[in-house]
């Protein structure tokens, strides 16, 4: 129950998407993930290498993506957590399916394991069904989930156009790049706007905390923002 918490929320979203695609289509490609999550392929590729480093996915160069046993377990756990929250919202609080789907997507990243465990206990007491026995979520989940994602409009900074503004949600880079971004003031919650791109298209220029900063597209792809 503890190991999944070393995986960042963005990576959790990726794992969840891969698992769902794997269950539905069998083979998972970068293109499929990008289409499903509504983000650029470059961002997906970047994320896959992060996940590969964590030994959660396997990918031959340009080949399909496969979850490792650890990755599958991880993804399943995330899915279960999502389902638990969804059930609680719908069955106990009487929230409509659409809202529940959207909220579950958001809560699943921040909720503590303790709260989840208590929720499961409560749910079991109220409904008489053990959460582990519940199967997959009902039909149409994906469509709703997609809509929910679009409603929040979280995307990589590299996908924003000149003049667009966003608020930093999370940074999926590791090591030196992550540290450097944090030091330069690109911290979650900060407003950031795209000022333009270099004549050759890369790097891009952004404005953050009142000053101008340039980043390579690859670095910008690691910064997820909520579009404003």
């Amino acid at each position: 129950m503890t190991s999944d918490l070393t995986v960042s929320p963005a990576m959790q979203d990726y794992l969840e998407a891969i698992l769902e695609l794997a269950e539905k289509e069998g083979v998972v490609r970068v293109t499929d993930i990008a289409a499903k999550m509504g983000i650029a392929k470059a961002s997906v590729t970047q994320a896959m290498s992060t996940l590969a480093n964590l030994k959660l996915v396997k990918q031959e160069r340009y080949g399909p993506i496969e979850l490792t046993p650890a990755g599958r377990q991880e993804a399943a756990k995330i899915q279960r957590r999502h389902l638990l929250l969804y059930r609680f919202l719908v069955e106990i609080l009487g929230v409509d399916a659409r809202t529940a789907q959207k909220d579950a997507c958001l809560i699943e990243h921040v909720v503590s394991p303790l709260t989840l465990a208590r929720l499961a206990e409560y749910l079991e007491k109220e409904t008489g069904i053990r959460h582990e026995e519940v199967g997959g979520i009902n039909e149409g989940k994906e469509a709703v989930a997609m809509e929910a994602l679009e409603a929040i409009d979280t995307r990589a900074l590299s996908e924003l156009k000149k003049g667009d503004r966003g608020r930093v949600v999370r940074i999926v880079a590791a090591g030196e790049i992550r540290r450097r971004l944090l030091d330069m003031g690109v911290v979650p919650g900060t407003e950031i706007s795209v000022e333009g791109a270099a004549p050759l298209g890369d790097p891009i220029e952004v404005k953050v905390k009142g000053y101008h900063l340039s980043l390579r597209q690859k670095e910008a792809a690691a910064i997820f923002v909520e579009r404003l």
Partner: protein
Amino acid sequence: MEAAAITKPEREKNIALVGNPNSGKTSIFNDLTGARQHVGNWPGVTVEKKEGKLIFQGQTYNIVDLPGTYSLGAYSEDELIARNFILFDKPDAVINVVDASNLERNLYLTIQLLEMGASVVVALNMLDEARARKIEINIPRLAQALGVPVVPTVATRGEGIKELVATVAKKVRETICQPLKVNYGSEIENELDKLEQIIKQYAKLAAKYPARWLAIKLLEDDMRLQEELQKEGARQVLDQVVKSKKQLNEILGEEVEAIIADRRYGFINGLVKEAVTRRQTLEERLTLSDKIDSIVTNRYLGLPIFLLAMWAVFQFTFKLGDPMIGWVESAFEGLTGLATGWLEALGAPQLLISFIADGIIGGLGSVLVFIPPIFLLFLAISLLEDSGYMARAAYIMDRLMHALGLHGKSFVPLLIGFGCNVPAIMATRTLENRKDRLITILINPLMSCTARLPVYVLFTGAFFTAKQGWVIFSLYLLGIVLAIIMGKIFKTFLFKGETAPFVMELPPYRLPTLKGTMIHMWERGSSFVRKAGTVIVGVVVLIWVLSNLPLGVAYASQESLIGRLGTILAPVFKPAGFGTWEAAVALVFGIVAKEVVVGTLGVLYGVEEDGLTAAIAQSWTPLSAYAFMVMTLIYIPCVAAIGAIRRETNSWGWTAFAIGYSLLLGWVMAVLVFQVGRILGVG
């Protein structure tokens, strides 16, 4: 207390100067120390160390200009140097230069300094710029909130420097300095407390580091400190770090380091809200800087403007520098003549006269001819950097340079290399990342400098009269292609690992100051003379000795030491088609300066420069001539470039590597050209 302190002869006080890049730190340093500066290197690294003296009320202050940094982490050499200096050298006071027009990000460093318990005086610089941007700062309130003195300055005009010095003089007498405590929220604070308790049990650690600071850095995943703790065997601390991080990740669901950075910025946000009023929101106002940028980095105009700027720098450095080089040369010729005449009048032996005239004075001359281009180039670079254009140049070129495995800032040094590799190698200073810098230095000599042109002209004139231009062009192109290949190879095998992030500030355009530019120019020029000069004079003297010994031989004849060396080396160059002792000797002389190859061949063939073309046409073939030009292009950088490499890498190892790899590469390429040419039946 104070009276007693004054009567005692006080030791020199150490003052560290810290600040973000582009905060005007260098201006403050220049204002404080004037011309009393000393430039060296931090031990073992390529980062430069600047120190200067300031005397105030009879007390001497040694001011150390620490590298410009945004933070005090462990990823870059610059940050580590700054941090270690403050922790271990314990300066009596730290002047933190803060750009008032960019307060939030600048205060991030201030907060870290205060967390370390440094005795800080804030120099709130560029207040004029802040005012122009309608940012009003309540200075007493800011000082109160930070708990340290804040002195307003405009360093470019020397405003506020006196007050700064007086404040520092007062600050160094304070002994107690309570570290600032940023509240990181109850969850993190709990873990910090636990960590602090355990750290305090290790006396050695507690004596070396402020406990809370160490605890914060460990939660921030500071690799250097973790390694150190491992070496110290502080198992319990490391175990607690793992436990704390796990615990925090569970509660907060986000990585701890992001939250810590966020809280720091949150703390700053509070400060700024209290002490700063903006009369106009920044978003509404397009600053002059933004307007300039909309043209200079424009999608269509950006590249042409950049190329124009580079062309201007190149012309300025070399077109303007060439006549000056001529003056230096004729001055030294005059000096040689004067010395020779004077010594002859004194009846000195011929050998001594030659040693002084050709060895010593000649050696000094070959150092000083580089002064005009170095001064001019650094004048231009200083203008580019201080105005803020250098950052744009890197921004514009990064796409291309990154594709070659380099950084946008590598472009300027490589371009300058076509003029002269010496100032070009010195210009790599603008690259912060050590790997990028070393690669740029190592491949720089492959840029065909102007000194190689006389060699090309001579040989193409003798053999390729019809296609002279194309042949010379092919050599320039070969250099570029080899530079790209070698750059990739070095990157793959020597400098493995993560690419350095490009994340770079684009500072607002500013008017450079005359004083700053002059000091910058003087620093570079004089440091070249002092550091590279010794290497250059040494090699020139050595070559003189080799050419004149044993006693009684004709200068550089086959019987001299250098001639014998040439005879021994000649077979090595046989596969490349120029296995004669004359060619080998010319190459040895070419180390002094590549254009010397031409003069040496003239001496060896016993002809004047006019007859040289004919003499060469007799003993060479077009193919061996081409192979020889390839060799001249690649093999061993000239001695001045070697001196510059030694100076800039601060390492004899890298210098030896630069010499060794180029020699090998030159030989391989020359042999390849000759052998493939022969098989194809050319020449």
